[in-house]
């Protein structure tokens, strides 16, 4: 490539990157200012970094409890989605009956149902089954996350030869053992994809928790942030500190798991 072309490409890339980073820069520098500094100088550095904004936001938004809730709900939901969906997909692939085709079609078709279509009656269902709590939220994630996961696993399992199952049967494995000991470990690349796609969604989800868990101490991070923001929306220094706090965990996670995340997104989309 010609030199001038390389340089202009490089500069274009960096300029666009700057544009992409700008909102993060604005977020962080202003979260360290006093309200007066925000009003007077919104783009520059703070004279003295006000870390007290973070302390206040951390305490007032009950950050620790919200973070633990989000983490537990995400991990348990994703674990269940992985196990339940891969097992279902395995059964669907290995049984070539009309019933199994119909069930798969049902799961896949459900992917186009927008949440609003089931939102109100779902609340009724959860209420009558006494599940307007974190348990209900997890089951909701399994129910909604199942479709895409089963679809992805189904495509992958089709490529696993039946000979493996048969050999294991001869060795005395039960159906369940074949699944847990042989199939499940083979699905590892798909587990990563399913985990990544669901993590981005579940960790950031606001609407479902806002409808299902409303008790203090059960709230997730986005939910807690929403209420905090409503209360402190006139005090940007605190609101921005709370926003930064909420952004930090996922960004750290991103930098450690980048390869898996990008691969997960790619595989999930291309399938």
């Amino acid at each position, binding site marked *: 490539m010609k030199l001038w072309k390389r340089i202009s490409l490089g500069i274009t890339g960096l300029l666009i990157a700057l544009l992409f980073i700008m909102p993060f820069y604005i977020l962080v520098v202003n979260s360290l200012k006093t309200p007066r500094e925000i009003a007077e100088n919104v783009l520059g550095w703070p004279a003295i970094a006000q870390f007290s904004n973070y302390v206040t936001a951390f305490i007032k938004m009950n950050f620790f409890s919200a973070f633990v809730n989000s983490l537990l709900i995400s991990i348990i939901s994703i674990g269940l989605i992985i196990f339940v969906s891969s097992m279902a997909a395995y059964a669907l692939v290995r049984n070539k009956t009309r019933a199994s085709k119909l069930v798969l079609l049902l799961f896949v078709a459900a992917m186009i149902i927008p949440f609003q279509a089931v939102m109100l009656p779902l609340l009724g269902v959860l209420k009558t089954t006494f599940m307007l709590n974190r348990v209900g939220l997890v089951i909701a994630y399994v129910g909604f996350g199942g*479709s895409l996961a089963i679809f992805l696993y189904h495509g992958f399992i089709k490529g696993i030869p039946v000979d493996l199952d048969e050999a294991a049967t001869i060795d005395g494995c039960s159906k369940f053992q074949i699944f847990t000991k042989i199939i499940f470990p083979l699905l590892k690349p798909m587990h990563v994809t399913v985990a990544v796609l669901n993590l981005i969604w579940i960790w950031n989800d606001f609407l479902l928790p806002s409808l299902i868990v409303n008790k203090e101490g059960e709230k997730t991070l986005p939910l807690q942030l929403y209420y905090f923001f409503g209360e402190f929306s006139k005090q940007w220094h605190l609101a921005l500190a709370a926003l930064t706090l909420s952004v930090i965990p996922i960004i750290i996670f991103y930098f450690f798991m980048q390869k898996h995340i*990008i691969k997960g997104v790619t595989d999930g989309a291309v399938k």
Partner: protein
Amino acid sequence: MKKKKNISFWLFLAPALISFALIVIVPLIIGIYYSFTDWNGIGVPNFIGITNYAKALGDEDILAALLGTSATPGFWSAFFFTVKFTVVSVIVLNALGLGLALLVTQKMKTSSFLRTIFFMPNLIGGLILGFIWQFIFINIFSAIGSATGLTFFNSWLTDQHTGFWAMVILFSWQMAGYLMIIYIAALQNVPEDIIEAAKVDGASSVKRFRYIVVPMIMPAFTVSLFLALANSFKMFDQNLALTNGQAGTEMLALNIYKTAFTFNNFGQAQAKAVIFFILVAIITLIQVSLTKDKEVEV
């Protein structure tokens, strides 16, 4: 033996099927029924026919909603705003996504760094992004406005027109990197030797792109268009956090939410939700079948 196999089949399916039925199928069926009743969230619903649909669709003057001059914004305002937003953001997002993908697949030292940066906003939830951009549009824009004396930068979120573009900007910033990832994967699958052969034959870079690259990355267009379309049409969090639907920037999902929880019209909200479901289904099915036709087998 056959019977035993059948039992294990259903046992393996049971956890997924039960949660799916409880969360999706049963509520969907109940929801369709509720849309024909006077349900208010509590008490016994009475069947009232298509009254909710008539009310939902007749809650404002369609022409005024289309022109954006509606005095009482309702379903149709939200509908036209959503459609407009979806059309614009599908175009902008895909152009940006493909552009970024082409940029970072050039042989550059910074390419992996750039990918990391462009993808980053996707990991942050729509609610948080909405609040961050609310700060930017309110504080940064007005600071630029008063520094430069340009009134153009003032109060973007309190006007339907600029509010619209504010949402397009926010959403493009969020999702372009996601589509970029999909386009990168497709671009990397275009065989190098075909491109080389075309070069030898004297095809210009524009022609190579138009006649070789584009047909070969058609599957990526299908997926990206689908994702952009579905996510724009169903947008909720960003809408809620950025403008809360003020100044005529309310989209369908938020309109349904408010009909239910702000105005307590559960039956009417459910009727709107059923219409919304049908719209989403029609649009996504048409789009997928249209672009699938254009895909070529390699």
